[in-house]
């Protein structure tokens, strides 16, 4: 009986396998105009990362609504399909596959987390589905691999953290003793290397006295804060974000960490509202790109002003930069479709044509110009400043701002980024715009 069962079962398996092997693989999405365009949108809407991911989801909602209110894309309505990245990488990958293969979603805005981007990019490639990375910024994404369908609507960790180091150097801050506390994954480790290498290029005496990488989502940084206090660094650099950043700042504030050392809180602007005037004064902060809601470029852009107004009315918050990153990614999708439609005489693009339309695309985003380079990486400017409380504002603003042009802080296509940093010309800092040169 048992013997029989094995035989039957394997026979059944072989039979079904043969049948399936002869079936043609389903083909879809070629040339036909769909009733509506589904766009996969990946972000964190739960867990500790949600405080950073939710503004992006809100922004996506607003952007798709306003696109549809304006008639959609050549009459086709857009419908976002949200995926929560907090489910873990394997679930996110499986959702990506499901959206493509069983819900026929032809384009994805994915993802927030670098880990998820790194995992999803090969899947997008395999499924031949254009994927626009909207926040993940590990420079490893495009470093060794050439993708056909994967693009990034924002810059990488290299220009982002070269900018902070350049800002400190231009301001002639004391960078002799540096302490770093970053989250324990690519984003944190990459930033630490880029930041400290840039400092060392111009100030070889700059020393890393303490380097800590607590895990993502650590509930308590008590020991780490003691360690930082005990090391007495002149500069403390952190690129924590989301609940990690809130926890760290909340726990470090009463312990006077930020009055002992000059703080570089790279993503500090995202928690301005949360901390209000308690946010450390004079900390170097920025937006990992140009997504500052109060920059001259944003104030001069009527579409951006409408977006900010709608955002504040609906969500009772100012849009922090993740919201702008998402909004800009939606604009990239729109621009790519419009370009593909234009170049194909109004015929609805398949994924191949869409990917070709993304190549070299230039978009005027809500916050400034964005170019998708030959390596598919985004090129934008970098805004850095310091936190300052001003009369009449319940939370700090960015003061002493500078807007570094993207080309000046980004290594050229195919250059090894760390090598590029190590060989920056001696007069590099003089060629950059000066702190305080941008804005009111």
């Amino acid at each position: 009986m048992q013997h029989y069962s094995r035989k039957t079962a394997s026979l059944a398996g072989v039979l079904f396998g043969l049948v399936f092997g002869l079936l043609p693989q389903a083909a879809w999405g070629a040339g036909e105009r769909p009733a509506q365009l589904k766009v996969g949108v990946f972000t964190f809407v739960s867990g500790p990362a949600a405080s950073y991911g939710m503004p992006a989801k809100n922004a996506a909602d607003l952007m798709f609504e306003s696109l549809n209110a304006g008639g959609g894309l050549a009459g086709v309505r857009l419908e976002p399909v949200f995926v929560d990245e907090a489910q873990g990488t394997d679930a996110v990958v499986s959702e990506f596959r499901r959206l493509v293969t069983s819900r026929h979603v032809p384009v994805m805005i994915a993802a927030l987390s670098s880990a998820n981007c790194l995992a999803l990019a090969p899947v997008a490639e395999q499924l031949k589905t254009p994927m626009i990375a909207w926040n993940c910024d590990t420079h490893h994404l495009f470093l060794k691999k050439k993708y056909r369908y994967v693009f990034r609507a924002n810059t990488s960790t290299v220009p982002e953290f070269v900018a902070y180091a350049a800002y400190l150097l231009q301001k002639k801050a004391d960078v002799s003793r540096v302490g770093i506390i970053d989250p324990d994954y690519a984003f944190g480790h990459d930033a630490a290397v880029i930041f400290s290498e840039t400092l060392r290029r111009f100030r070889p005496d700059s020393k890393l006295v303490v380097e800590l990488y607590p895990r993502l989502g650590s509930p308590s940084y008590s020991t780490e804060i003691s360690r930082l206090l005990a090391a007495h660094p002149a500069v403390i650099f952190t690129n924590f974000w989301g609940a990690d950043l809130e926890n760290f700042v909340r726990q470090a504030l009463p312990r006077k960490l930020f009055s002992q050392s000059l703080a570089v809180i790279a993503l500090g602007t995202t928690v301005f509202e949360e901390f209000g005037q308690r946010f450390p004064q004079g900390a170097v902060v920025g937006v990992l790109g140009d997504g500052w809601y109060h920059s001259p470029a944003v104030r001069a852009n009527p579409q951006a002003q409408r977006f900010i107004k709608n955002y504040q009315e609906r969500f009772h918050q100012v849009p922090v930069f993740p919201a702008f990153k998402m909004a800009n990614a939606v604009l990239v999708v729109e621009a790519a479709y419009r370009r593909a439609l234009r170049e194909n005489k109004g015929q609805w693009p398949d994924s191949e044509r869409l990917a070709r339309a993304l190549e070299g695309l230039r978009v005027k985003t809500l916050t400034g110009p964005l170019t998708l380079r030959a390596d598919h990486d985004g090129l934008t400017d970098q805004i850095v400043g310091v936190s300052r409380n001003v009369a009449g504002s319940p939370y700090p603003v960015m003061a002493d701002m500078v807007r570094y042009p993207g080309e000046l802080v980004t290594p050229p296509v195919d250059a090894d980024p760390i090598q590029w940093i190590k060989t920056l010309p001696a007069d590099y800092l003089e060629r950059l715009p000066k702190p305080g040169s941008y804005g009111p």
Partner: protein
Amino acid sequence: MLTPIVIDGLSDAALLFLVAVGLTMVFGVLRVVNIAHGSFFALGAYAAITLGLWAGALGLSQALSYGALVLSALLVAALFGPLTERLCLRATYGRGEIAQMLVTFGIFLILDDVQKLVFGVQERQNDAPLSLLGVCNLGGIVYPVYQIALVGLAVVVAFSLRWFLRGTRAGKLVLSVVHDAEMARFSGIDTAKVSVAAFTFGVFLAALGGSLASPITGAAPGMSAEATILAFAVAAIGGLGRVEGAGLAALIVGLGRAFAVYYAPAFDRATPYLVMFAVLLFRPQGLLGVVETRRL
């Protein structure tokens, strides 16, 4: 450098002890390895934060948030203790570890979603109890007073538990059941009642740990899984069922982690499990565990 390491280690040890003590007590009494322990810890934290914020919103004195810490643990214990024991655990007594694991893991999974439904998926915080006590300067490093006070609190919990079990009638009843349930039943003790009371008390300890830790740690999804595994590590190192053991284990792991953060940051997370593996290899019953006899 040594002073901050010791202080950080002690305060970490206090948190670890509070995480683990409920687990080890429940194992001592019921012989149940309760995977859902971390869930009760997290529920305690959530309840304390919610109650504290309510008190704040009602304009009540901020000092009340300390009361909220204990009250929330009582609430969680009253709500979940008897229910879990009667409905789920009771059926597994004497059926071996696998059935227990399944049941408590099931409860763990269910409570994880209950937390999300009730308290949302965002991180929650109430640091009123933390900021109210201010900060102090120890050896040139600024610490929140609450964090230091927690060390004292953990010691108080440890000694009151010892006193309760050895010095009160209720505690002696519990111990008699632990020692020999059969004998206890013959001498007229309602072992079922003792079981439900003991489990509820374990839930209370778990929730108390969570609520006392909450001003420092906040509460967020995922904290139950972390609390469960840390509690397992500390309880196993000290000897399952041994309250003093949990204290000793918490000290070792807490100080070990603090030293790791200063001298070998790559190993700070692995410390509890490296210690656990090393200890269990040579003393499977744990540091203070006793072989084959049920003691508390």
